[in-house]
């Protein structure tokens, strides 16, 4: 077949798939873990509309009180407590094993993994999905969702 100039019979789809970078299992797991951690992160931010004060007399969350009685109590600043009681998690776990040996701890109280199989939903639209992205292993349900995924998310997060 190579006789006809430039024409080859290899499959364009397979060639495309072979060229694509495929993430290994460890990277996929790392990305999945990061996604879970992002979900669990603290979601506090300053109120974007906090400057819009409708009523100047509205009660505010005051961090300085100017009455004499409370000022005496307030001799220690909030930072004092921050540094006095600051412990990292490993420190707390170690201390826990000293104080309460042989007892269930916070870490043990987590429920075990489910006995039911994992269900699969499209990462783009959320409906049940039957396919996975070859490159990164994310679920998708239709050609249009795959296109959206490839355009926006596939390998575009810094892994």
């Amino acid at each position, binding site marked *: 077949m190579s006789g006809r100039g430039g024409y080859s019979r290899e499959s364009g789809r397979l060639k495309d798939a072979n060229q694509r970078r495929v993430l290994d299992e460890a990277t996929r797991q790392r990305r999945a873990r990061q996604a879970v951690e992002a979900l669990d992160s603290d979601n506090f931010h300053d109120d974007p509309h906090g400057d819009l004060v409708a009523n100047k007399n509205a009660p505010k969350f005051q961090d300085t009180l100017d009455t004499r009685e409370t000022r005496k109590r307030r001799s220690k600043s909030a930072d004092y407590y921050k540094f006095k009681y600051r412990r990292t998690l490993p420190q707390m776990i170690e*201390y826990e094993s000293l104080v309460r040996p042989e007892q*269930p701890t916070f870490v043990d109280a987590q429920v075990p993994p489910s006995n039911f199989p994992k269900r699969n939903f499209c990462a783009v639209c959320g409906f049940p999905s039957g396919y996975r992205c070859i490159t990164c292993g994310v679920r998708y349900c239709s050609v249009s969702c795959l296109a959206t995924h490839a355009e926006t998310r596939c390998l575009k997060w810094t892994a």
Partner: protein
Amino acid sequence: MKAKSERRRLFIGDQGLLMNWDIQKTVWDYIFSKECCPVNFSESPLIITEPYFNFASIQEAMAEIFFEEYECQSFLRVNASDLSDYHYRKDNSSAQGCLVVDCGYSFSHIAPYIKGKKHKPGIKRIDVGGKLLTNHLKEIISYRQLHVMEETYVMNQIKEDACFVAYDLMANMAKAKKKYPENDIVMDYVLPDFTNIRRGYIRTLDQPPITEQQKLRLNNERFSVPEVLFHPSDVGLDEMGIGEAVSYCVSRCPSVVQSHLYANILVTGGSSLFPGFKERLFKEVRASAPDEFEVNITMPEDPTTYAWHGGAMLSRDPDFYSFVVTKEEYEEEGPTICMERFDG
């Protein structure tokens, strides 16, 4: 310091523990100040709640602050579900046990109580709570429609206004795939602009369409977000869902009390307020509980304040002062007295 992506937390859920003392102290100062809730600690005892299996270092610091800073006269440290169980026993004096399902902000707990005493091996935690659900909703809406990652407050309102627990997930998914008249799930949510509209609201599709306001189209998001409570694996969290965990926790209790626990399931906490939560939980527990056991789920009128009211009732209990630690006892014996009395 490592790059942010390389930093690794030991396990998920440490955000539910008291870690930032400076912030917590500021909050306490405000709560006990004249502006909020003036209290005289020399007369009023204090009941404070903490997560299950809280760390001893946090407990000691907490006792120190309340006895030495606030000069609290008597102090009681409990888990919120202890108070719910107390309330439940007052309401149902014949109950031999109670299984408290507490779906909170940082995590959800399932805790069996046998005649008022908690059974520690049966207490389990699922790292899914209101915070994770709001974050999940934020994440999928930001990807599919409009960037709302900075709008936690509004997204939390949307979650509370529009989300519900599906009784049958796949049937709801099939319905959500259809177009509007057959699909009664899809709806619009008009976002607040904080000038004309102070709070967002739901707008069903049978009303004439509006063009001037920003709105979100909610479809399968409405039930796939609370679904995470029942299947944490949907977001990649390798844990049991609430329904499965209930049977698991009961199975870790002595067999003589298992039937009592199934018959006295109490649901509390803000994340249980989704419409359909109780029906779905019943369906899942009924499916996994042995056939001869009766399954009975109680949901208080207001699940968010049930534990608080239990605490208020406990403070009027004639035996209340035998549970607390007083300032004199603390000064005499130090932090160990708290541990002996509260964890015994």
